[in-house]
């Protein structure tokens, strides 16, 4: 049976795709699941697979061409089958609209819930495949296929009745959570009415967490009013998840939580889960006028990231001793001074949130955990694999991770999520005998610590010249976020703990 191969939806925000390469030629036999072509989406290059078997009779989109979601890119059929009607439909462009609609319907029928679930539990590769299958890669000439797909997709989430007219304009949204389009449907663009945007900003509501009830999912005034009366952001997210998994008990929102007065200094906003798996949750606090003036003025001086540098000398005797002691305990442990510095920096970061932050133009992003980027020199240059939540890991664990990451870094085998999204970085040139140096901040992080060589130096202690293991560190700070005193206080903490590593036990 003749089947159209259509431009699939390979990412949630995908509106069009570029066909980078055909993996089959016209006339080739293809089987279900075989890769047909490579497609560049807004996010990545992915493989489109055949969902029907037969012969690749006609290629309609050449390599390098960009076509909208739903466009017919090829036709698979039996070798002698008549495909002329399918061809003319595809060429008239009529098919594109129909396919796009059925893709969208099947996404909606599956509900956001189904997709969210997949995204959570399935590793990356498998998710891609599931998405392709769930979101209708090909539509048969008859409509049966499309229906099947939407049904199988919807069995992943819970079944919802077809869209029915709203009966009330009550609290949540009448078109149903998940059934109504997400406001970001228009190519990732959030559609918000001006007054709703203004009210949300004033009430400190995260628009991303809302489902709009206006046309095309536009977030309108009543959605904000509903969010405010239901206890704002967290409640709005909870409403979403209960809709997709009715059996789960709704998340409790503390009744005492102040509803509107957030936003200013009053109470920090809740942390938001990041898109990269395993990365630190964060909260965005609006930039104060003073901070934005500092940012603007300093950027015009040294731009775009205005660095300044703070250097301190750290007495490392106790740290070195701790390292020796630990390594003597267990032959498996190969803790380096750098591993200790990572741990101590992470602990210090949790005490100085302003340093574990990132300047986001309109807001300052604060990270919940300290994800430390560790600069690793490799042949072609340098890469900074990330030790996630180093503040919560043991030194031994950090040590193992760093060794493993560095090894794979040198083999160029790191996944993107393993070298992006650090909240702070450390660069150590001690092994090259460098006494001190300044490192360049890796945006959007707010600081980087440059670590020099540790070695015996004559220093004065209690009026006596004595020999101590001295190490110099220099922190480069993004002045848009970190001021001199903020950075200095962080270094004080870092120095205090490294000089007395027993603090790690407190």
């Amino acid at each position: 049976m003749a089947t159209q191969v259509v431009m699939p939806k390979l990412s949630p925000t995908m509106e069009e795709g570029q066909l980078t390469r055909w993996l089959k030629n016209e006339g080739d036999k293809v089987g279900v699941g075989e890769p047909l072509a490579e497609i560049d989406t807004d996010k990545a290059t992915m493989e489109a697979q055949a969902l029907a078997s037969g012969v690749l009779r006609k290629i309609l989109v050449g390599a390098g061409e960009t076509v909208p979601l739903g466009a017919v890119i090829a036709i698979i059929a039996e070798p002698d089958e008549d495909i002329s009607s399918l061809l003319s439909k595809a060429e008239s462009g009529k098919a594109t609209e129909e396919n796009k609609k059925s893709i969208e319907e099947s996404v909606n029928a599956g509900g956001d819930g189904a997709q969210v679930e997949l995204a959570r539990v399935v590793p990356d590769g498998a998710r891609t495949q599931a998405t392709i299958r769930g979101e209708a890669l090909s539509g048969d000439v008859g409509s049966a296929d499309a229906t099947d797909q939407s049904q199988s997709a919807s069995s992943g989430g819970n079944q919802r009745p077809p869209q029915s007219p709203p009966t009330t304009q009550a609290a949540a949204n009448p078109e149903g959570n998940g059934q109504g389009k997400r406001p970001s449907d228009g190519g990732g663009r959030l559609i918000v009415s001006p007054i709703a945007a203004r009210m949300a900003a004033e009430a400190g509501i995260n628009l991303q967490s809302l489902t709009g009830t206006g046309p095309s999912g536009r977030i309108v005034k009543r959605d904000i009013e509903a969010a405010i009366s239901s206890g704002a952001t967290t409640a709005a997210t909870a409403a979403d998840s209960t809709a997709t998994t009715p059996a789960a008990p709704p998340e409790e929102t503390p009744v005492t939580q102040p509803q509107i007065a957030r936003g200013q200094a009053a109470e920090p906003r809740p942390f938001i889960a990041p898109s990269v798996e395993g990365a630190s949750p964060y909260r965005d606090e609006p930039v104060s006028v003073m901070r934005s003036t500092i940012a603007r003025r300093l950027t015009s001086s040294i731009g775009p990231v205005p660095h300044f540098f703070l250097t301190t000398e750290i007495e490392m005797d106790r740290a070195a001793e701790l390292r020796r002691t630990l390594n003597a305990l267990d032959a498996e442990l190969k803790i380096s001074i750098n591993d200790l510095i990572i741990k101590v920096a992470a602990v210090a970061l949790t005490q100085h949130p302003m340093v574990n932050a990132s300047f986001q133009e309109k807001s300052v992003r604060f990270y919940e955990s300290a994800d430390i980027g560790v600069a690793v020199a490799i042949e072609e240059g340098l890469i900074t694999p990330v030790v996630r939540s180093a503040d919560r890991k043991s030194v031994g664990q950090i040590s193992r991770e760093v060794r493993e990451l560095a090894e794979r870094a040198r083999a160029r085998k790191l996944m993107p999520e393993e070298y992006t999204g650090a909240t702070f970085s450390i660069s150590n040139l001690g092994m090259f005998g460098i006494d001190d140096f300044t490192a360049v901040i890796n945006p959007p992080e707010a600081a980087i610590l440059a670590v020099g060589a540790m070695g015996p130096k004559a220093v004065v202690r209690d009026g006596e010249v004595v020999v101590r293991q001295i190490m110099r560190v220099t922190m480069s700070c993004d002045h848009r976020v970190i001021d001199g005193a903020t950075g200095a206080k962080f270094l004080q903490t870092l120095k205090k703990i490294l000089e007395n590593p027993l603090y790690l036990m407190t």
Partner: protein
Amino acid sequence: MAVITMREALNQAMREEMHRDENVFLMGEEVAAYQGAYKISKGLLEEFGEKRVIDSPITELGFAGLGVGAAMVGLRPVIEFMTFNFSILATDQIINSAAKMRYMSGGQFKIPIVFRGPGGSAYQVSSQHSQALESWYANFPGIKVVMPSTPADAKGLLKSAIRDDDPVVFIEQERMYGNKGEVPEGEDVLVPIGVADVKREGTDATIVARSLMVPIALKAAEELAKQGVSVEVVDPRTIRPLDIETIVRSVKKTNRVVIAEESHPFCGVGAEISAQIMEHAFDYLDGPVRRVSGADAPMPYAKNLEKLAIPDVERLVAAVREVAYLN
């Protein structure tokens, strides 16, 4: 307060102003002996004589020009067009002479003239006699454009127009001449030009309506109130100068706007109001401003089609429900 028709209110306004100021005179087709095609000038010839109530030949450009000349030398003419459709012939005098004279003479001449008469649709007078031309005149600096919707506004505004030292285009609505309403008594009860009036207060949506659309908007508001939707009706009353402050105040309160107008939509007054709302109150809108205008087509003669060409209560109700996201 006496309840009178808009026709009587306009008549009273002219009579009172002619008594008050001997420089005021009325000129137009059939205004004297026949007492006006719509009887607005009833009794005026008898009362003020043929020097002040003058029948003109059927020559709009001519008598409009005579009016401009009379205004230049100190008289205060009221020029009646049998309908504003015929004022099209006089646009050269209105736009090129009346609107420009004060500016081009460096302020040496003021032009205290009123061009008045019925505009908009009547009953089955077809394409050439059913036009709402306010956007034409409102386009030009130098002219004030007034459109009353109640007998009280009609009287108070016409008196203000006659006393105004600049040319005023005063557009009445033929279908509204028989509308009745309370009109305050007193020779000096004026309605200022350039001040809008909130005809009904509400909280969920604003209908900006003028002239014939005001009573229709009020009926729509009544209907919507039964459905639990609270509608504010704002009547600008003067198109130029436009009281955008009052409209913006209302938009800031309701966040949703429907503009009702009898005229064609394209380049209309509604488009101007809509643009100004965006300029002044963008951050207060909960959605796009919605216009409900007359059909973008010549007015049909057929009664059923004519009805369809003019915004009605149902369409306003639907538009308000749309902007309030209730559909």
